[in-house]
């Protein structure tokens, strides 16, 4: 087993993950799969795909957990897993809401004027 498994994350309710690379691989591929159903020109799809692909490449290239955490630069690897899970649920809801469509309704005149 390469590397020593750390005892605790230091965060309440967040357990140390046994195989973070595998878990991240699964999550990132699921996110990319759910992004395929969004139209290609949607900004959410382009930015999220770029972000997830960057992180995915880092995960694939770096086997050491410490160095991977430092490269991704977003907290501990367990927190990165939580972020990926949130992004997955968000992408599924985005498919439902379709926020790339044009504005629903313009605000009434002087709605956002300040001072009145």
């Amino acid at each position, binding site marked *: 087993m390469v590397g020593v498994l750390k005892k605790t994350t230091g965060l309440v309710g967040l357990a140390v993950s046994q195989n973070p690379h595998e878990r991240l691989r699964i999550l990132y591929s699921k996110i990319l799969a759910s992004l395929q159903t969004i139209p290609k020109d949607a900004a*959410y799809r382009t930015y999220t795909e770029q972000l997830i692909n*960057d992180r995915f490449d880092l995960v694939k290239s770096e086997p050491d957990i410490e160095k991977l955490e430092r490269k991704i630069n977003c*907290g501990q690897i367990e927190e990165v897993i939580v972020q990926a899970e949130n*992004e997955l649920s968000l992408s599924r*809801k985005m498919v439902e809401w379709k926020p790339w469509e044009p*504005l629903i309704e313009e*605000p009434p005149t002087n709605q*956002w004027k300040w001072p009145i």
Partner: protein
Amino acid sequence: MAASLCRFVRGGFGRNFGFVSRSPALVHARFDSTTTETRPTVRPKDEVTHNQLSAFGEYIAEILPKYVQQVQVTCFNELEVMIHPDGVVPVLLFLRDHTNAQFKNLTDQTAVDVPSRQNRFELVYNLLSLRFNSRIRIKTYTDELTPVDSAVPVHLAANWYEREIWDMYGVFFANHPDLRRILTDYGFEGHPFRKDFPLSGYVEVRYDDEVKRVVAEPVELSQEFRKFDLNSPWEVFPAHRESKDTPKLE
């Protein structure tokens, strides 16, 4: 639309997002000054933070054009995003779950009453991102009768905030688990923070010895309420006159 991509790294944490040169929703209100400011009592302009925040505001406006109506960065470097009331839950969920945003804390939720507008109540949500150490403000609008979707499914902290807004302003939140009064007395009628609610209220309470309980009676002021008009006849801020034709970015 060709988007030019450049990376912004802020304060040690990498938040990677592409920068787009134009956005229909961003409102620029900058006064160009040719002379540098030397007075020590004037806050120095922090251009770097201002530009970072406006770039992030454009990023949000580009991803959620269905709901975002306007984005602005105040002179104190606070990012404000104005959205349509239908988009409360989607925008809050996006800001909570998206990896580049992660605004997991709902710091505050309030309402502002501006009676002259068509939609008199302006709902304000203040969010904080611990990961990226940044704050954002989401603003929506509603009138007295239109319900707004509750933010409780997204942030549990919104529970009591929405109860307070219901109690004080009368804004109804749909899908709230328990929307009831929180600050006013049990049989209180009216919404006290509205601008048309008088300062001393309509009823006052006293203990009546005959009926041996607290009774509510119409309020009796010993002195008529005095309202002072404190506006001076001279122009107060000559440097901030409203220009007749504001250039809108279309």
